[in-house]
């Protein structure tokens, strides 16, 4: 069996076992393709994303885990390091700082950490980055909050 397949299978089992342990992350494997995963992550508290549920799409390469998975947001999010249109994420561990010791689960954790600590100096979303860089925390928070409400919260009523 392919190394990547074997490893993903192990991760799948691990995810089933840890489901209860980490309620913020819900990783699901595509029924027919073990290289496609989706995740639902909860916006961290005390951030404008609090209360939102964001969907991530994972595309795992054949060389996994030696090469990082491709991850993007499916849910619209206003964040300096996430592309507003495509949902692409600028995160070092998904690029050159990747280590095969990471798992899909730990990548999700890293993304949650990124939501809580944006890095406005390497923005993919310049509007959002500029708000933060110019010190307009309030402006950034209300924009992010608005999009969380619009896109990441189940509509009531």
């Amino acid at each position: 069996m392919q190394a990547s397949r074997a490893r993903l299978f192990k991760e799948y089992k691990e995810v089933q076992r840890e489901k209860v342990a980490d309620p913020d992350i819900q990783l699901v494997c595509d029924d027919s393709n073990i290289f496609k995963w989706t995740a639902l992550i909860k916006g961290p508290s005390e951030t404008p994303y609090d209360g939102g549920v964001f969907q991530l799409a994972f595309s795992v390469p054949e060389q996994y885990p030696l090469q990082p998975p491709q991850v993007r947001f499916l849910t619209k999010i206003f964040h300096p390091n996430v592309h507003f249109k495509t949902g692409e994420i600028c995160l070092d561990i998904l690029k050159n700082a990747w280590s095969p010791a990471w798992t899909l689960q730990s990548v999700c954790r890293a993304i949650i950490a990124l939501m809580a600590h944006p890095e406005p100096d390497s923005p993919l979303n310049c509007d959002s980055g500029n708000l933060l860089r110019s010190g307009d925390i309030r402006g950034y928070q209300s924009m992010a909050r608005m999009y969380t409400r619009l896109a990441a919260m189940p509509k009531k009523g």
Partner: protein
Amino acid sequence: MDDYMSGSEEDYYYYDRESFDGLENEGSESQWAPSKAPSCKVITKESLLAAQREDLQRVMDLISVREHHARTLLIHYRWDVEKLIAVYVEKGKACMFAEAGVTLVGAVDLDLPESSSTVQCNICIEDVLLSDVSKMDCGHCFCNNCWTQHFIVKINEGQSKRIRCMAYKCNAICDEAVVRKLVSKKHPDLAEKFDRFLLESYIEDNKMVKWCPSVPHCGNALRVENDEFCEVECSCGSQFCFSCLSEAHSPCSCLMWKLWTKKCRDESETVNWITVHTKPCPKCHKPVEKNGGCNLVSCICGQAFCWLCGGATGRDHTWSNIANHSCGRYKEDGEKKAERAKRDLYRYMHYHNRYKAHTDSFQQESRLRETIREKVLNLEARDSKLRDFSWVTNGLYRLFRSRRALSYSYPFAFYMFGDDLFKDEMTKKDREIKQNLFEDQQQQLESNIEKLSKFIEEPFDGYSEKQVMDIRMQVINLSVITDDLCKKMYDCIENDLLGSLQFSIHNIAPYLSKGVERAAELTIGWSTQAGCNNRCQKADDQANGGTIESDQPSASGTSDDSGHSTWKRARKESVGGGLIDLNLPAEFIDRID
């Protein structure tokens, strides 16, 4: 290197004879080229390993590390041993190792439990036998399968020189021996590739070593010792500027030369002129030049249009007005622009014409070699007191050398006194003074070169002995003078012109009387074997077609010791051992024959 400096007079005679033998045998390019330069070495495929061995050994001895750690350190510090030592002294061993990714002590946290025969690999999350795992120097331990996959991915990504450990944030570079062992089991070709990358790092990551730019590539690399701003000749015969890898272009700086070649290629001034002086006809789109008269222009196709805005118009007009058409306010601007473009073009043409003229003369004079050889043969056949004709070849060589410097001095002047590069660094008056100073020197050099050329071209093989003696004196004198003038011009450029600039750094290769330095073959360990030393030296001299050794440092290089060249990095005085020193007084040259 000191051995090169000492030579007895018998040697001079010996080498001198050799030079003539060589001349008769081949008379090829190498005869006129400068002989070996001790500061530049050719590194062939075969000597590449040996070349880096020296540096590796030095580091291994100094810090007492194993070879693969020494290599990791050197790759990190770009093979700059001095820098490595400086960091070692300044920051200490631990810090240097951490920066470069060398870990000596295995981390304790991953110590394998001795009792269990299997261990879980954190990458594939499988339980594997202890015999199937490898532990790197950093202490991280994964199964061989995962390691191998990791290495293959990294080698294919072109990361052979820095394959890091798989653990997160572990900076350690993997042991090359482990990489080799594991990869070669599955993919011997990749292991070979890995080895080659490691070897070639010595060339690619090293600012003192560069590939020879010859096309087709000769496979050699060249290493300089002291100064990367120099001109060198590879053993394949191609001469180039070590710093920018284009043709040898001093006294132009690399930037100037780059701009100049681009300008010549683009003919950008012509294009400029056309855009300013012509307008496309609105109907047939041919460029139309206005040759006088008012602003209503008519194209040969019959279409009339307004010169100022380019729009099509009717044919009725007065001197200042075209019926139902008005756009006159841009007039002044346009004229100024046209004037400037014209001035710039003339300026460029002036410098380019002179540059071209001297390059052309240089090429024509290159044909002189053949005729000169005949003349020398004719003269030698005669039974006369005069036996040594090295003055002819030396004079011819001097002519080539100075002609080259002269032609490249025009592009230099174009940029030095133009607006492109140094507009803000000199006042107008300052620039004028400097330009005069420089042009005086250039002119002197030019007139002496022409004189030298005239004497060398004379059919002196038919002259009487006395006339030949006269020409000989003239050629020797003029050789000395032109060499001197070249040197002065370079000095002036380095110190008075480029040296006084505040903001831009322009480095030029130093003037060497004997021309571009020819790289010597890398002889490993020759300096430690005194016995071999002499043999090598003689062999080299013979191979290079005869040289005259001089006790005094030849007047090569720049006047570093004069202390006013503080703006550029200090150059170690390159002592031109084993080279024709044409600056010696005539009596000295007399003594040779």
